[in-house]
């Protein structure tokens, strides 16, 4: 109803380079789409959490988790498909910039899911934004991939024989008590069940592979914890990330 304050440019902020059409078709696709892109998710957020939140805007048809190309584990984004355009619009209006799993998530219209779009587009398999990130984000695998590689290289130099990265004990618990009022949200996710993972094309074969992938996932995760004090986004007090510019989706073509 309101038209006075709507930002008409909001739709075209980001242009997916892989969209097979011109700008006009792209805008048209966004304006009629019932598919949403959801970004800045924690790697631990499950489809069921997404379902619980997004079903409050309407009946959900499908959820497609974004997965790391290499590890086949969630890498921090997903697509949500609704049955009706109106519900999709409401989800963008009412859920974007609010908190899911302690993170402020982004919700945008998407031109439509196609097979292949579930994979991260970063060099290391995850999202592009996680390649270059320099902060420590425990919800998204710790440091960015570039920083991780650097840290690993350094660690090789000062390795006192422990050899395996998995032997590094995380230091998070030492920061536990500091945030009295917050009741230590930071360290919590480690006790959590790993998200049920899914493999779109080989459901029935996923069970035996599960353990291997889980352990990959786990060792990758634990190796992320370095002795530097963590900077935990879960302690951010403002949940407003309308201006979250570091998402790889935001790169223009």
């Amino acid at each position: 109803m309101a038209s006075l304050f709507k930002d008409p440019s909001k739709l075209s902020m980001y242009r997916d380079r892989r969209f097979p059409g011109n700008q006009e078709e792209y805008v048209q696709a966004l304006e009629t789409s019932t598919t949403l892109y959801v970004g800045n998710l924690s790697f631990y957020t499950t489809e069921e959490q997404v379902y619980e939140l997004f079903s409050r805007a309407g009946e959900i048809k499908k959820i497609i988790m974004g997965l790391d190309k290499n590890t086949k584990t969630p890498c921090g984004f997903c697509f949500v498909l609704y049955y009706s355009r109106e519900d999709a619009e409401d989800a963008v209006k009412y859920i974007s910039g609010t908190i899911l799993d302690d993170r402020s998530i982004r919700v945008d219209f998407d031109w439509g899911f196609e097979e292949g779009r579930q994979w991260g587009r970063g060099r290391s398999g995850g999202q592009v934004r996680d390649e270059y990130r320099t902060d420590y984000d425990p919800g998204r695998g710790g440091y960015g991939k570039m920083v991780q590689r650097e840290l690993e290289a350094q660690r090789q130099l000062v390795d006192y024989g422990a050899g395996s990265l998995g032997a590094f004990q995380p230091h998070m618990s030492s920061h536990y008590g500091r945030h009295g009022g917050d009741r230590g949200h930071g360290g919590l996710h480690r006790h959590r069940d790993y998200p049920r993972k899914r493999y779109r094309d080989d459901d029935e074969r996923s069970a035996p592979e599960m353990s291997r992938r889980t352990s990959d996932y786990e060792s990758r995760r634990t190796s992320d914890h370095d002795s530097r004090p963590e900077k935990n986004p879960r302690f951010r007090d403002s949940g407003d990330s309308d201006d979250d510019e570091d998402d790889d989706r935001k790169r223009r073509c």
Partner: protein
Amino acid sequence: MSSWRTLLLRIGDRCLEYGGTTDFKEHIETCYSVIWREFEHSKDGIFELLLQCAEQLPHKIPLYGVLVGLINLENEDFAKRVVDTTCSSLQDSLYSENYDRIRLLLRFLTGLMCSKVILPGSIIEAFETLLSSAATTVDEDAGNPSWQPRADFYITCILSCLPWGGAELIEQVPDEFDRVMIGVQSYMSIRRRTQDIGFTVFDSDEDKFLEEKDFLEDLWDRIQVLSNNGWKIDSVPTPHLSFEAQLVAGKSLCLSSISCPEPPEPSDRHYTALRGKEKHQARLKYPQRIRRLNIFSSDKTENIQPIDRFVVEEYLLDVLLFFNGCRKECASCMVGLPVPFRYEYLMAETIFSQVLLLPQPPFKPIYYTLVIIDLCKALPGAFPAVVAGAVRALFERIGDLDMECRTRLILWFSHHLSNFQYIWPWEEWAHVKDLPKWAPQRVFVQEVLEREVRLSYWDKIKQSIENAPALEELLPPRGEPNFKYSTEDSLEGLDGYTLSKEFSGMVRARKTAREITSWIEENIIPVHGFDVSLEVVIQTLLDIGSKSFTHLITVLERYGQVIAKLCPDHDKQALLIDEVSSYWKNNTQMTAITIDRMMSYRIISNLSIVRWVFSLSNVNQFHISDRPWEILRNAINKTYNRITDLRKEIQSLDRSVLLAEEATRKAIKEYEAAESKLEVVDGQPVQSEKPGRLKRLKGYSEKAKDDETSMRESLEAKEALLARAVEENKALFLSLYKGFRDVLMERLPPVSADGKLPKLRIANVDSMAVDSEEPSTMEVDHDNGRTDNSQSNGEKVFPRYSTGEQEQWCLCTLGYVKAFSRQYASEIWAHIEALDSQVFAEDVHPLFRKAAYAGLCRSTPEL
């Protein structure tokens, strides 16, 4: 210098464009001077934006009124255009029944009158038109009292203009104004009080409610107080007074007279059910804007004038209406209203009144969740405490809260907390653990925790209640699947285990659904029987699909047919749902999702879900868990969505058919015109058009005809689908009401010999009476209990819940009868004849009838 656009938009706001001041006179002067400078250049742009602003920023109407007044001094044409356009928009809205526009345009006209753009007499004339239409409508003979909602709405419109223009009118046209007031008074005396018990948020208010004033009577009271105060009002700015000296020089215009649509012809008076239906339709067209909840004690809000409360509510509701989707603007507008007093409590009450508005709020409840989150951020020092106060107050009365409202409150609260790190002083509520498991407060806490776990994860929520470890008992189970064949030595015996292994092997080997079906039909059912087969198939498939929502969908897409073949009828489908519920017994969300998806793939029907919900094990949970209700809600909602989608498609096809008809007509006409063009050659008439063109035109017209035909065909196909869906809907509601009727008949206490209805709440009312005798000590005790560590003296301090289990079950189930009836009233009214003959027969329990009728807003026949 800011552009005229920004200045128009921002006028009245504390903002940079106006140097941070809020002096309205200065704002108007600044804005006017810029507008006037740009006037010749962008007259049309100014005209358009000004009208838009007046409609969409209605709390600034007085400012926009003065701007038009000032322009009127220099350019009468412009002001006339504003008046004429507004007036004709008002006329259109009256006929298109766009109630928000009617209300706001009338207010804008009043604002223009204050700034001497419109003659006061003209406004009076408009009021009188509305007044006489209202009076006719409620007249038994001349009108159609079913449409009282519209009549009431017109009167509300008149009254709600008075805070803006009452002072002006009484000064300039006192006699005419008195006439209007007398007219309203006499309307008030002939209308009926609106007693839609079905829409009350608190059930126990019922008896009180009947004596209470309704919205219009309350507004009328407030207006009369305002009138007695000499029309002085704090919440409406009066910038026109600062410009009076200039404005009086302006030429005031007459409004062209408006007219109201006639009330529809009353439907057949012989069948009273139809009148109920008509009333329902009128209510849908003119829904009540707010049902004010008095959440806080009056000392928090009532130190303002009664009329100020109404005006601030108007402001807030309009901001919510027009700023939907603009988060930042919405929050800043809500906190920056042009009133000289604080209104956080009023704001919270207004928003909660919308969240809990029955039958439904204007927007999805999640919108208000967002608004509350944003207000908590915008006013971090004040608003969170007010919200917490509202939660506490509602929690105290949760047992009286309508069932639908309870669900909304649970969804809102869990979502709200998820945005604020799940921090809540749970220790205040630790005592609910000691209440019986059907106590509404206990169920509320349990369901909030359930939703929190869904939004987050179990360990985290457990940690969030560490200050109230007693509440851990109310946490849902950890949510893992309950797979019968996880180990060889399960209770289910080796058979099932082996079969399940074999089955999942086949799935892994990518056997087709057909292969698996024949394996089941040939090898399993004959040997092990149906029950074992069903168990093995469902347990195994669910286990394969247990890892996520997508896994589930994949399995159902691939092997749904296997299940469908196995369970072709309602009975078997109900068993199937039982099996789903058993596999996911620790996880309500997955149970609900699985059932929902199975209905999507048409593996199970809505009727079998209803049947399952009314099976004994579920019925026994009605008063202690939301689980069966969530599943029932989903099933009905999905059915409703399907039929709504069909209706929408048909609507758009209807339009397309009309367009196609038009196109055909045009093409044929063009062809015929071309064909009939003759010229005389050698004394003989011959066609003058080239044969090529004729052929082409003929082709076009034939194609247009074909298009039209195919369009009609698809419309017919959809209409057939709709007709089927309507029949299915009828079956669904019949089965729903029969289900309710049967379980209630078994459990409701009988009507006593003298015909008195059993009172389910008696026990509780007594305890309430005790409480209310010493409310202040209760409060103190409560606080002490909290600070002195509730464990030590918890028993003594906290109130018990005295409603018995059976009574609570009845209250809860009746509450849902009302809630479902209300939510789907339009669908249900469509089948009222069938329901009347098959469900609401003479011998039906009066309490059941009462609950259903309340939801439908249907008058209960005398008992």
